[in-house]
């Protein structure tokens, strides 16, 4: 694998790690299968692109994109809580609606972002070689977001959210406003996803309405694979597993791309994903039975 391919894997892995963090909050903490991300990822890209070509500076545009993602999360929460639509369906409905909304926001299916000042441009001017800028910026963003999520889940509200996902009836009986936890959790998760979309689009050079396709699979591969390979009850380790999972996934793709001798191409990515996740799910099953015998607590 060349240095460039490694950089490519790191930058895409880090960009999607934010989606993995968001999916960790919804799928693992809240026990709410949230497919909104297929819509909120391109929403982030759409909002940031439209604002940037209209002259807004990239930082404000990126924050606006996060806000939009948060609203998307609220929409799913509304459908689930007020209209009593099953969680997975509610999220799919929002994702479907977002497809048309994103087209409307952009006004066209694709907006080019080449030669437009991005959040990365600033760092390039600092003298960092442009090849490494996205990796550096994304690494900082991912670390900050991960630490904030870790800290949040250790607060009173964070613990309440974990209880709401683990045992809603018990949580309620202990004063937790379960519905509020769902709203907050979905808001945070989709804000992270939209942030991911916004940063990704600026790195890619374009926002495209079909960018969301396959995002959920990537996020789940990262969450499931990552946490299964690194079983732990400690939240900071679990979120680390999600981030690493996202990067490892991209490294696997990079390997598949660069090893033409094995005969794998990018088209085989889906099979690679399935195999990775299967292995990741199988291994802890064996580890679990070992740890059980020694009496230590394992998730």
């Amino acid at each position, binding site marked *: 694998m060349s240095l460039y391919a490694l950089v490519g894997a790191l930058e895409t892995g880090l960009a999607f790690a934010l989606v993995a963090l968001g999916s960790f909050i919804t799928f693992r903490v809240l026990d709410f299968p949230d497919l909104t991300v297929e819509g909120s990822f391109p929403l982030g890209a759409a909002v940031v692109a439209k604002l940037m070509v209209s002259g807004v500076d990239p930082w404000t545009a990126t924050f606006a994109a996060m806000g939009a993602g948060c609203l998307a999360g609220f929409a799913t929460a509304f459908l689930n809580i007020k209209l009593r639509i099953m969680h997975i369906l509610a999220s799919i409905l929002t994702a479907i609606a977002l497809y048309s909304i994103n087209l409307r926001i952009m006004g066209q299916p694709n907006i080019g972002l080449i030669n437009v000042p991005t959040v990365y441009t600033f760092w390039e001017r600092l003298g960092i070689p442009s090849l490494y800028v996205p990796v550096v910026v994304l690494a900082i963003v991912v670390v900050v977001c991960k630490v904030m999520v870790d800290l949040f889940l*250790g*607060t*009173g*509200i*964070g*613990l*309440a959210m*974990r*209880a709401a996902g*683990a*045992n809603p*009836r*018990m*949580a*309620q*009986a*202990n*004063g*937790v*406003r*379960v519905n509020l936890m769902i709203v907050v959790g979905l808001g945070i998760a989709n804000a992270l996803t939209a942030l991911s979309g916004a940063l990704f689009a600026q790195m890619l050079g374009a926002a495209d309405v079909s960018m969301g396709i396959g995002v959920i699979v990537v996020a789940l591969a990262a969450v499931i694979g990552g946490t299964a390979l690194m079983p732990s*009850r400690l939240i900071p380790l679990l979120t680390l597993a999600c981030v690493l999972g996202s990067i490892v996934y991209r490294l696997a793709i990079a390997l598949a791309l660069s090893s033409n001798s094995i005969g794998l191409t990018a088209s085989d990515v889906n099979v690679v994903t399935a195999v990775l996740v299967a292995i990741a799910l199988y291994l802890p099953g064996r580890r679990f039975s070992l740890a059980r015998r020694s*009496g230590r*607590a*394992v*998730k």
Partner: protein
Amino acid sequence: MIGIENVEITFNKGTALENRALRGINLSIPRGQFLTVIGSNGAGKSTLLNILAGELKPDAGRVVVDDTDVTSWPVHRRAAKISRMFQDPRAGICEHMSIIENVAIAAARTAPLGFRFAITADIRRLAKERLALLGLGLEKRFDDQVSLLSGGQRQALSLVMATLGHTKVLLLDEHTAALDPAAAELVMKLTGEVVRKLGITTVMVTHSMRQALELGNRIIMLHQGHITVDISGAERASMTVADLLMLFQRKEGTELADDQLLLD
């Protein structure tokens, strides 16, 4: 301090399955009283508890706790005043979280921490103190997952969790019914001790006439949505299970065919 005034509730109104579960319950429970509720299946015991807890809203009537009308309050709002133990040992705790995390959640019931860190030194101190009372060694296993505990241990933990903070009312929903006899015995003993020590107003639903006589100081019996028996004090102290049964039959004029009430 708990007042239940003219509470009525009907399920599946207007259909073939219509069930008038509670038909005008009037009950006043003074502070510190330990009330046991017995009755056959479908008598309305769990329904009464659910209405007290807030999981059900009555069709008519009020629930008043310490002069505050809480009838329309949802579960989470009442939680600061009213805590509850469930029959299923898995229902009152979060299995995949640790003992200390569970205690922290319960502590937040009466003292929410918001954005401050949940597991503070104070919480640890409180947890150690209260768990030690159980005599089960749980205070030495803070970071163990609750899934490692037996049913009896979990209910004991739930008991501690339900009595943290300035809880005013403790609801016990057949909380030993799913345990094996030894564990049930233990949890009952602990219940008696904890309630006595902390003086919390308690309402316990049970199938067991023996438990009803052993714990608490007042028994009410529900039958078809009404309170048919209400005994306390000396009258109650002198009763046996057989006496209780005869009292029931006399009041209702029916042959008691419910096995569950007899067994035990």
